[in-house]
């Protein structure tokens, strides 16, 4: 009698678990205002442990967080724990699942995020909002900086604090490219003149996706011609020229455009091995180190474009399910401090560009930025970001990626 009933207990329990998991998300939305003062927040943060979920494939980034940010946070009474993920989408999966379950003590306290992932979280109401304006160091960020108030066209609304800026850059091997092109259409023409020596990663890879958007800016006559929020009419009007240009150059690409490198890592490998003569990246500061340790050829140079390239910022966001939000805010403020931002901007440390407006800093802090080492490969940030184009809204990203797969890759419907 007893063993038979017990045998039914386990399947019943599992079915119950399954049934409860099927409940529609009914948990309350992320809090939209932060009413406490900064000193109240720091008091509450004392002794908490922050789990920072961030992309774990960047050695320099990991070293910066482990060796510089974590001890600095410990001095403020906060324990910072870095949780590496292969892709921010893995962190998003966790956050969305915790949101769906209505968890209040989630495993993710702080996450490095921007663009489409931020928009996905906003769509699902998964972010704690209204807190970034409380951070004392936000006063060093220019209030009208479009890259910081809008995240890929989605209004930030205090739901995330800025951390780095990035600039999409084309990179070429000056020993093999005799006359470097000066515009995006020039790059495509160069590819046609040198068959098999150029390619780009297949969207939905992040870098491939932004390359397609750069070509869209070029074929549309500039980013001002494209509505920042996705518009079906604009898409139908502007994309035929885009697909035409990409299909036109495809036969001259590496492997005759029959296939594309799956991600930016694969493209970098092709460039390092000499199979192609150009690559592209969102993080040009890392180029100095790559050239110094011999991964990339010593004749690697940045290719500036007359019309400028896309720039964006990335942020630290706190999920609404976070268990230690106060200490997460303290860490976000620490990461935004001039001291940390200047350490982080050094190419030997991490090489991530600062989000701070150096004109708002005092003399000694500004000197930290002026004294950053110069490099042969990469021009200084203010030169690099001249003419920085803003990103389109993340609502454009998916249709463009899908459109590329259909029009250029030949994927069926």
């Amino acid at each position, binding site marked *: 009698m007893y063993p038979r009933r017990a*045998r039914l207990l*386990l*399947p019943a329990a*599992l*079915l119950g*678990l*399954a049934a409860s*998991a*099927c409940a*529609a*998300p009914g948990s309350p939305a992320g809090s939209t205002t932060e009413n406490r003062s900064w000193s109240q927040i720091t008091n509450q943060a004392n002794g908490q442990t922050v789990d920072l979920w961030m992309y774990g494939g960047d050695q320099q980034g990991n070293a910066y967080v482990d060796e510089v940010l974590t001890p600095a946070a410990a001095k403020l009474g906060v324990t910072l724990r870095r949780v590496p993920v292969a*892709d921010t*989408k*893995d962190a998003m*999966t966790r956050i*969305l699942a915790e949101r*769906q379950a209505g968890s209040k003590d989630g495993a993710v306290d702080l996450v490095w995020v921007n663009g*489409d*992932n931020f*928009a*996905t979280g906003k*769509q*699902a109401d998964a972010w704690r909002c209204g807190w970034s304006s409380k951070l004392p160091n936000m006063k060093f960020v220019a209030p009208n900086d479009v890259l910081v108030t809008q995240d890929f066209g989605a209004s930030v609304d205090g739901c995330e604090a800025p951390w780095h800026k990035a600039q999409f850059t084309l990179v070429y091997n000056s020993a093999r490219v005799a006359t470097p092109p000066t515009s995006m259409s020039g790059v495509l023409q160069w590819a046609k003149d040198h068959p*098999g020596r150029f390619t780009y990663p*297949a969207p*939905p890879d992040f870098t491939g996706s932004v390359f397609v958007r750069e070509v869209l800016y070029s074929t549309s006559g500039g980013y001002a011609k494209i509505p920042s929020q996705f518009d079906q009419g604009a898409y139908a009007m502007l994309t035929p020229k885009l697909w035409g240009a990409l299909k036109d150059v495809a036969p001259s690409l590496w*492997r005759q455009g*029959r*296939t*594309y490198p*799956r991600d930016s890592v694969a493209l970098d490998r092709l460039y390092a*091995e*000499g*199979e192609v003569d150009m690559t592209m990246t969102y993080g040009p500061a890392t180029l100095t180190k790559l050239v110094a340790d011999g991964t990339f050829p010593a004749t690697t140079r940045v290719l500036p474009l007359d019309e400028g390239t896309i720039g964006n910022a990335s942020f630290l966001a706190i999920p609404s399910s976070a268990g230690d939000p106060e200490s997460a805010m303290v860490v976000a403020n620490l990461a935004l401090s001039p001291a940390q931002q200047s350490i982080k901007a050094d190419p030997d440390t991490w090489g991530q560009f600062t989000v701070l407006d150096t004109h708002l800093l005092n003399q000694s802090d500004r000197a930290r930025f002026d004294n950053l080492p110069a490099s042969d490969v990469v021009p200084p940030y203010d030169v690099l970001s001249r003419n920085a184009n803003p990103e389109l809204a*993340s609502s454009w*990203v*998916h249709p463009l990626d899908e459109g590329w*797969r259909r029009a250029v*890759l*030949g*994927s*069926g*419907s």
Partner: protein
Amino acid sequence: MLLILGVTGTALAAVVATSLGLLPLVGRPRLSIAGFTSLSGDLHAATQESLLTAAAATMLAAVMGLTIATLVARSGRGVRLVIGLAAAVVTVPHLVGAGATGLLLSDVGLAQRWSGIPAAAWPELVGGRWPWATVLELAWKESAFVALVVIASVGRQYAALREVAAVLGAPPRAQWRRVLLPLSAPALASSSLIVFVYSLGTYEVARLLGRAYPEPLPVMAYRLFTDIDVAARPQAAATAVVATGLALLVAVIGLPLVRRLGADR
């Protein structure tokens, strides 16, 4: 047993429910087959790619495994060395094998440098029109598995039976065809079925060595699952349902055949 069924059943039910739109991450649940129909062309291409890779890898692994088993059974010498090597190959994870195969067979890989053929003329083995590199990596690893299973099942019986056949005047080729082959058939069939179903579900090998499009079902499912558009979840689940269904179909068709060859004796 019940625990396995419980966990697997719940997982399968969740995936099927997601593919039918009943477990959305955002929005209200609504029953629909849009997850399947909106990508029917891609699903078709992905299924073909999966089946092609799995069939080629299985056939190659079976041939290579049987050859190794034949050599071992016939000679009797160096058995331990071959079994040791095969066991070592089996313990190498597919991810490591895929990485090594990529470095070996790519356009500027080791094989190209050793052969002296210029990089431009090197055949497109990695990420090319046909999944050569994927099939070769799977076949290499799984042939060791097939060889071990066949050797284990044939074992010492073969020596005695071969003597009888030789005494009755059978040449070596007939010995192989009439004695070894039927003796190893059940083990070969069952291990080939396992290799086929496994190859249908392989992710990391196809992801590293295959081309961007068309991609096998598991690679497509993961790409859709991690898509920035959360509305792509039903499509990802639909791909996973198709892959699982295909594997189950193959198992259902293959098991009676294997049983007929006497594998369960």
